[in-house]
């Protein structure tokens, strides 16, 4: 147990993921792709999922996966957030995988773990752990209804659909009409699922599966937010050292230095909160509080980092060609994903025994 630090194995995993992303995930290509009807980089996803085995990171070895823990998944998410990689790791290898781990669905789990299929949980992205969500209607043995705001559904061939009988169903994406929505964050696109008599395999009770999936997602999302905030800080520091105005680097002006130093402080805190959540998810100790704490803090810190990055880049920060907009869009979308900071503070009111009036 490494507590709040990174183990040597985790650092090795980070280095491997970063190497791959350095070679195959250029910002210019991500920006160009975000403007098309196919925003996901499925070739990159295959390299990560098959090539590196990341799709099965959270799946035990005896069930076809890598047998790693949420601590390792968190390190992967830091790197994916840092590179703004448009791949469905969080939605498939974390959310859908955790939902299947809660059910006895080893066949599907092994397919997801091997990267042969990609999954998505048919719950709107903004729904946090313990919150209510829409469900499909089960009628005549098939599924009906419309579910919106489902992240990465266009990249998924397996949809995990909660239905009004309280069960979770595995539905083949070919049996569903998946309509992309125009989204604030184009690198993690949302879609509407229209189910019109879609056949589904009953996997088990949806409540525990969805709770587990969303709890893990909320806790690990903080690591993605850490990755993007780290990029925002490092890239901005690099920029203000180079950019000259009034005869000197703008990074030498105290007003900017203090803003960047404060950003660094938030980054230090965000790292502690994200590591704590990942460790708590791995050990099972104090998990609910650690997850709610991380999300109550991470959203504000990540959005602040992206907003400061944009402002301190000046005019170039407002352009489509500079990647800072990808980070701002993701940071803002992440601040709603799997529960807002306010929703998680509400959870802490109960967990920390600080009840409302």
């Amino acid at each position: 147990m490494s507590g709040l630090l990174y183990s040597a194995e985790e650092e090795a995993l980070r280095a491997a993921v970063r190497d791959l992303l350095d070679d195959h995930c250029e910002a210019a290509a991500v920006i160009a792709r975000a403007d098309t009807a196919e925003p996901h980089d499925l070739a990159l996803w295959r390299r990560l999922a098959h090539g590196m085995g990341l799709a099965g990171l959270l799946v035990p070895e005896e069930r076809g996966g890598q047998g790693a823990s949420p601590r390792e998944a968190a390190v992967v998410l830091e790197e994916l957030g840092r590179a703004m990689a448009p791949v469905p790791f969080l939605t498939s290898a974390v959310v859908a995988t955790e939902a299947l781990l809660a059910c006895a669905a080893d066949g599907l789990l092994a397919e997801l773990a091997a990267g042969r299929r990609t999954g998505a949980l048919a719950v709107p992205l903004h729904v946090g752990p313990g919150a209510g969500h829409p469900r499909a209607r089960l009628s005549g043995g098939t599924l009906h209804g419309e579910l919106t705001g489902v992240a990465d559904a266009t990249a998924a061939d397996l949809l995990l659909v909660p239905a009004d009988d309280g069960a979770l169903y595995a539905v083949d994406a070919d049996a569903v009409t998946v309509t992309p929505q125009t989204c604030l964050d184009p690198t993690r696109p949302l879609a509407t699922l229209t189910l019109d008599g879609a056949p589904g395999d009953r996997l088990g009770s949806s409540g525990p599966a969805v709770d587990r999936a969303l709890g893990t997602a909320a806790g690990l999302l903080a690591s993605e937010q850490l990755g993007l905030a780290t990029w925002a800080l490092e890239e901005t520091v690099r920029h203000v050292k180079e950019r000259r105005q009034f005869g000197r680097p703008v990074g030498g002006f105290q007003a900017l230095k203090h803003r960047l130093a404060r950003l660094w402080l938030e980054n230090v805190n965000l790292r502690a909160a994200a590591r704590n959540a990942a460790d708590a998810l791995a050990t099972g100790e104090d998990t609910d509080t650690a997850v709610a704490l991380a999300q109550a803090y991470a959203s504000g810190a990540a959005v602040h980092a992206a907003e400061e990055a944009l402002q301190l880049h000046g005019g170039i920060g407002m352009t489509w060609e500079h990647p800072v907009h990808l980070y701002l869009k993701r940071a803002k979308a992440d601040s709603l994903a799997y529960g807002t900071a306010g929703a998680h503070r509400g959870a802490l009111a109960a967990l920390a025994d600080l009840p409302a009036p």
Partner: protein
Amino acid sequence: MTDADDLRRRTAALLAAHPPGTTGRPEFLRARFDAGLAWVHFPEGLGGLGAPRALQAVADAELAAAGAPDNDPRRIGIGLGMAAPTILRHGTEEQKRRFLRPLWTGEEVWCQLFSEPGAGSDLAALGTRAVRRGDEWIVDGQKVWTSSAHLARWALLLARTDPDAPKHRGITYFLCDMTDPGVEVRPLRQITGEAEFNEVFLTGVRIPDTHRLGEAGDGWRVARTTLDNERVAIGGTRLPREGGMIGPVARTWRERPGLRTHDLHQRLLGLWVEAEVARLAVERLSQNLAAGRPGPEGAATKLGFARLNQEISGLEVELLGAEGLLYDDWTMRRPELVDFTGREAGYRYLRSKGNSIEGGTSEILLNIIAERVLGLPAEPRTDKDAAWKDLAR
């Protein structure tokens, strides 16, 4: 190589030779120091065993379980946190042997004669003079904001010894005897009503050259050791959840539902989150230190701690409603302990205002982070290479 089992054997041997029930406090502490169990990461013969710092917890736990007296780290915080690391790093063997043992046992309390009325954040501008006369230095000047000066036996003193040199290069570091007849300590009453700090007037104070720490003119480099340790000492204490200033507010919230409002609830939850995250950041810093990887987060924890203490204590006064308009006691006292969370909400609110000033202002610490951690250009310094005597004051 010392390991946890070895430490437990040594601790057991100390307890057997000096049973806490029948041994006086100073005697036990001296024996503990001599056994190398005071600060295990210090060298042998100087209260330590050259062991990893993280093993201290093993010795501390065994001794606490046996009911052994402790050396009251809160009362001797400046000695432990600042004097000890500076003397260990820059002192002569003679100085280490003379000062570290009574420092650790608490038989000699330390204070820090750094700040002056004209040199606070710009500490290197200090004007207290030390002039060499044979084997002695004669010191004249005035210091301010000196915690514990009224209790201290020894002081860490910065004085100017070469006014012709640029300000950072003409300073020398001394260990000053507070019982010297030229040392006068006057209480300085503060915003809280008490006199926790002092003014110290130095008039013809005679310091033997053997009490110089480091080379003459090299005092600024020595002081950097003290200052870096000060920030860690102020902000880097490991605490349990709700162990800091958020604790009293949370308890009041739980115990007195009549005070609750929706606005205060939202603010309280926000600060609870920030306090807990800041606590985890300190925990992460400590784990890095224990793993032999000191990080730059020391300065960060002090900054975060200052801002949070101020916001939390401000909220606490509001939460108390009508009671928040009262104050417990304005009597001028001379406290023996600096206790940021002591007394009542109004006191905490006023005292915490000092947290962003003492030990380096928040503004200076932000500069340090920006320059040393992020590598941003340094502030322009027109006075850096000018002789100190030519600077405008």
